């Protein structure tokens, strides 16, 4: 690197004001911009100088409208797209430092795309899940272990393992596809709308499995979703995207205490949070922001002095 270039890189570092900073982030975006179809009439800035930390070991949710830049962002995390400008740091190192080795990054940051069930292709469920670990060059024993572990995270019963993935229901296929990435045990697991199109219990099963993976392996997990209610229930941290920028990022408590701001940008806040805002206008207030049924039940029980489980 030339002296001038190095200096520029450092200036870039210094000027970036990182949102939701961590001391030792798993992933860091530094002044990242991404422009689609540059130089054509359809040129569009999908990300506009974003600087953001993703905290190590946390389950982070990314929300925002279609076109807010969130899908672009997750594709930048594993080097599927190259930033137009700025840097993506994984464990403090620029993932594009050696462009020829970007394949290694994709083993470290696993991406589950939308509707991943369309990407199944093997003859049996276990072969499909084993595809990734096999490509990583793991031994036969290790592969079996990884496959079984991943299947148990997503709740696939053993008797399905020898079936063709194409005979499964939509929700089961989805789980196979997610297990296939989990089996590679990426340091960062990124999922784009993992529960889209599933019924309420299917959603819950998928999200619980992902959370268990996060808690038991300690791997960093990032979920992109439209569903604020799922985010509120399962995530540690939340990143809100709007107009190609990060509108806010922080712990879920911090984010949901700004419910009105979320509503302003037209995001669907959880029903419970909307209820709390309506009651606030009637002069009924709560010490903390409410976003899950569990918390709300406790808070209301305390408010109304109801017996068992009622607050303090």
């Amino acid at each position, binding site marked *: 690197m030339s002296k001038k270039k190095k200096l520029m890189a450092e200036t870039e570092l210094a000027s970036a004001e990182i949102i939701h900073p961590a001391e030792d982030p798993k992933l860091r975006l530094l002044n990242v911009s991404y422009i689609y179809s540059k130089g054509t009439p359809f040129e569009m800035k999908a990300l506009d100088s974003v600087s953001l930390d993703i905290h190590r070991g946390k389950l982070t949710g990314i929300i925002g409208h279609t076109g807010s830049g969130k899908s672009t962002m997750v594709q930048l995390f594993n080097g599927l797209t190259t930033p137009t400008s700025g840097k993506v740091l994984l464990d403090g190192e620029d993932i594009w430092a050696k462009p020829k080795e970007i394949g290694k990054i994709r083993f470290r940051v696993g991406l589950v795309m939308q509707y991943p069930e369309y990407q199944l292709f093997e003859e049996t469920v276990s072969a499909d899940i084993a595809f990734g670990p096999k490509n990583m060059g793991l031994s036969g024993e290790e592969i079996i272990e990884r496959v079984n572990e991943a299947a148990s995270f997503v709740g696939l019963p053993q008797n399905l393992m020898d079936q063709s993935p194409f005979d499964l229901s939509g929700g089961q296929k989805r789980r196979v596809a997610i297990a296939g990435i989990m089996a590679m045990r990426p340091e960062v697991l990124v999922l784009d709308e993992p529960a889209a199109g599933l019924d309420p219990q299917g959603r819950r099963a998928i999200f619980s499995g992902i959370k268990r993976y996060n808690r038991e392996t300690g791997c960093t997990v990032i979920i992109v979703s439209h569903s604020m209610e799922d985010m509120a229930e399962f995530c540690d941290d939340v990143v809100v995207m709007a107009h190609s920028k990060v509108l806010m990022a922080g712990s879920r408590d911090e984010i949901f205490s700004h419910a009105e701001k979320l509503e302003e940008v037209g995001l669907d806040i959880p029903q419970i949070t909307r209820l709390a805002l309506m009651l606030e206008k009637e002069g009924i207030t709560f010490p903390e922001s409410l976003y899950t049924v569990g918390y709300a039940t406790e808070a209301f029980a305390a*408010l109304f002095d109801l017996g068992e489980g009622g607050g303090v």
Partner: protein
Amino acid sequence: MPLIDIKNLSYAYREEEGEPISVLKGIDLSINEGEYVVILGHNGSGKSTLAKLMNMVVDDYEFAQGQILVDGIDVLSEEITDDDVLNLRKTVGMVFQNPDNQLVATIVEEDVAFGPENLGIPHPELRERVDRALETVGMSRYAHHEPHRLSGGQKQRVAIAGIIAMMPRVMIFDESTAMLDPIGRREVIETLEMLNREKGITVISITHYMDEAARADRVIVLDDGKILLDGTPAEVFAHKEKLRAAGLELPQCTALCYELMAKGLKLEGPFNTPEQCAEALTRAYRRREG
């Protein structure tokens, strides 16, 4: 006479080999003109099959039994004529889940014209229908746009306009909001409610979003190929355990109100929407203060 009258309907399909797989097991269901009905059920409960049978868009009728009368014509009858099928398609319009799979033309207004043109609607009227349909869904501004550049919600509204232009009496929405983001969902729900309330079109919406069900006149819950519950949203939501067993969950606020009542708080319903729940809780709070 109900517009749709289903009697003892059973349906199964056969994979390449093996026993037929039963999907619907004895459905009795009448839907009157002008109703706004939501059909709920988990993935695989049979709700989509039921919808597709009403419009004759399943592939295989070998294991279909019972009657599906649409405007008096039995869809499953062996004597059904091509004219009957054409009439059926004029009566019942269907909007599917994936907006990208439903648009066929390269210009929005041509896409909307596709259906009515194939029904043989002559020219001046065709133009009028297309314009009116686009106006109804609020997409007139995009008449000359390319569909693939629209947002998901906009694409779905174009697909709806294509159906409206055929002037059906019933519109079936088969998980038409499932692939949309919250704004797109809202656009589509507002459109379908407007079609029902202002244009008098019978709406049957298949979904697993419970908050959509809360806004309907009538909610039907399918489980394992049978009708588990059928009633107003309030009646259906009162069966929390049955819903859970059927793979569904109450809307958050409704669940909260029931939880609090179970803990001894006296609340007066309905609790279908967050607004209603806020009202009930405010009333309880004032009563306590007062």
